[in-house]
């Protein structure tokens, strides 16, 4: 391959006019470009055709994957040029800075770290749902749209589970960036979406502490250390980092992918609900690993062969399930049946997370904190009922959360909740369609019609309901 002449402003390539160079990196350069028919600003990425075959194949990978991606979390693909002339990719220009300058300001307040992290996790989940693992998530590859949505750029090391992996065997060295690369990538596994969760954990660690979790190793032996050495807990660097944030960060940074969160949506869920994060020993851990534990991890890291699984299968294994519970005595038979349905889902997928939701109906006119005749707080009462309802499921605290939503319209509240939290499945009871409900429409009917995910509607036989109502 001959080396093309250097590019100049004003030069035209396939109808695109080069304006100014906006970035120059190891893998290539970025140019602002215009074309008469383009309504949006665009950039052209031109690879650095050096002797480094990773750069060339990486460019080929990005040319293959970017056109297949869509949505607000990726730059829109516009055009590509092949290697026979000048190779390039033209894509939408994203205004605004990357996350990288933010590192200078770290440590950031916990809620700001959580808010940034939730945006990035949402973008990752969207990418994973499109069958793609990024595999090079780092602050310089994370941009933000003016509205706040995170945009992930640079797919040169990415993996599409339904396309050949051009980088799989060609390169003997681990592919990734030192501070963020996951342990399984160090072992050259490139098909686990949870590798991106590890990188996200490393980014959050840096934002919360101002320090790198694993330094910036450049040798394979340096990279391998993360297989048996745990990072210093964030709270040891920054005592202002709350236990819930340390819990989330260290949960992302587990060496064994199976011990991490099951999906990016689950990470986003915890980052947006700090008060419901179940704290484990990780949350308050302050020390370093004992010599014995380090030795044990080192022995395990030698010859470790991570389990292989596809992106799609991993997302199926780790759904967020919402169960809408009406825990009043009157509907006990229905609440039992809803619990049985939830149990079946949770048993078949051990990484599934359950969010138990109860809607406290408020008046549209006076949305103050509702109390009963005796002045007791109904919100707290509902929370207690929810926990009581879920007790027979005997779930580990990390798998279940409880939420009382106060809203005038229960169906709308459940649907909004599911959308905001990227819920995969809603389980809801149906009280039957009699009397007024037939005309007004039941909650379950509306949830089925409008929810952005699968819905299971649970019913109990009419007689059992009647008996339960009598007994109640």
């Amino acid at each position, binding site marked *: 391959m001959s080396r093309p002449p250097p590019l100049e402003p004003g030069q035209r390539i396939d109808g695109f006019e080069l304006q100014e160079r906006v970035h120059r990196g190891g893998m290539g350069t970025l140019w602002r470009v215009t074309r008469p028919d383009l309504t949006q600003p665009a950039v052209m990425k031109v690879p650095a055709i050096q002797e480094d*075959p990773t750069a*060339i*194949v990486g460019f*080929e990978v990005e*040319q*293959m994957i970017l*056109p297949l991606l869509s949505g607000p979390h990726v730059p829109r693909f516009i055009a590509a040029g*092949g*290697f*026979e002339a000048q190779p390039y990719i033209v894509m939408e220009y994203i205004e605004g800075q990357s996350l990288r300058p933010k590192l200078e300001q770290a440590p950031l307040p916990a809620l700001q770290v959580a808010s940034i992290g939730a945006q990035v996790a949402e973008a990752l989940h969207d990418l994973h749902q499109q069958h793609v693992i990024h595999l090079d998530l780092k602050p310089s590859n994370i941009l933000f749209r003016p509205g706040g949505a995170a945009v992930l750029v640079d797919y040169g090391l990415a993996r599409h*589970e*339904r*396309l*050949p*992996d*051009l980088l*799989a*065997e*060609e390169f003997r060295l681990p592919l990734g960036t030192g501070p963020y690369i996951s342990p399984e990538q160090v072992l050259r596994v490139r098909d686990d979406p949870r590798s991106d969760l590890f990188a996200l954990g490393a980014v959050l660690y840096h934002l919360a502490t101002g320090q790198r979790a694993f330094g910036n190793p450049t040798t394979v032996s340096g990279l391998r250390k993360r297989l048996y050495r745990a990072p210093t807990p964030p709270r040891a660097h920054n005592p202002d980092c709350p236990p819930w944030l340390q819990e989330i960060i260290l949960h992302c940074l587990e060496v064994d992918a199976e011990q991490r969160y099951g999906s990016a949506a689950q990470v986003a869920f915890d980052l947006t609900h700090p008060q419901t994060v179940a704290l484990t020993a990780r949350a308050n851990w302050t020390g370093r690993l004992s010599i014995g534990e380090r030795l044990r991890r080192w022995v395990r890291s030698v010859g470790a062969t991570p389990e292989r699984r596809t992106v799609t299968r991993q997302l199926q294994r780790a759904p967020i399930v919402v169960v809408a519970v009406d825990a009043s005595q009157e509907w006990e038979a229905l609440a039992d049946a809803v619990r049985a349905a939830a149990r079946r889902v949770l048993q078949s997928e051990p990484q599934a997370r359950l969010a138990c939701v109860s809607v406290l109906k408020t008046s549209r006119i006076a949305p103050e904190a509702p109390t009963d005749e005796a002045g007791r707080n109904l919100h707290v009462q509902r929370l207690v009922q929810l926990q009581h309802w879920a007790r027979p499921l005997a779930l580990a605290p990390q798998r279940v959360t409880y939420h009382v939503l106060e809203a005038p319209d229960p169906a709308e509240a459940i649907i909004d909740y599911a959308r905001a939290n990227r819920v995969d499945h809603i389980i809801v009871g149906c009280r039957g369609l009699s009397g007024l409900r037939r005309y007004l429409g039941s909650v379950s009917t509306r949830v089925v019609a409008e929810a952005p995910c699968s819905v299971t509607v649970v019913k109990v036989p009419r007689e059992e309901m009647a008996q339960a109502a009598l007994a109640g």
Partner: protein
Amino acid sequence: MTIALMTDIHANREAFEACLAHAGDHGVDQFVFLGDFVGYGADPEWVLDTLIDLVARGATALMGNHDAAAIGALSTHLNPSARQCIDWTRPRLSEAHVKFLSDLPLSAQDGPCLYVHANGWDPARFEYVFGPLEAGRSMQVARARITFCGHMHEPMLYHMGLPQRVETFAPVPGSPIPLSAARRWLALPGSVGQPRDGNPAACYAMFDELTSLLTFWRVPYDHQQAAQKVLQAGLPPQLASLLLTGGAV
């Protein structure tokens, strides 16, 4: 131009009909048949009549080893059950069928694509592309960027970049794969009439010349009916069970 690549039909009318209908529904406007139209199945006459008609309308068809055997032109070995099928097939062929088979070329090239039945290094010897070793041998000698081969009854995609290392990819049916211009590719669409990867559904592939997108397909068809016909024809019963199981052991 969207090209359907179909190979190893092996006289299986039900599978061939299902694939033709599927290709019609997916905007295919050109056909390339990579050989082995007869042998193993019970409908050689219908399959050949259909092919003669398609070739008259512009399709490309190549010669496979079973086709060569059916006109007595095969110098290499054929397994006993295949031999038995060929002996059963021969008296059923019309003059037009024999002429069609005799005129088939061993390979064809069109733009970036090379079409062969068995391999790109010596099409007449019908050696198999068993794995990356043979795929690499074929890609290295081919003048074309993309080689399409039949002969192996399992869908597979091989590719080779600058370091000349050959990689293997098991395609996901229905997911288009962009064939990057920066490397060489060798695609095995898999068999229409006798899949052997444990899935009885018929295999074929579709290539869009404009976008360079290659899609592998699995098409379910009435394989029980096809197997029943094999038994009724008095052909070796293990050939019927191959159709029922998709070659699973």
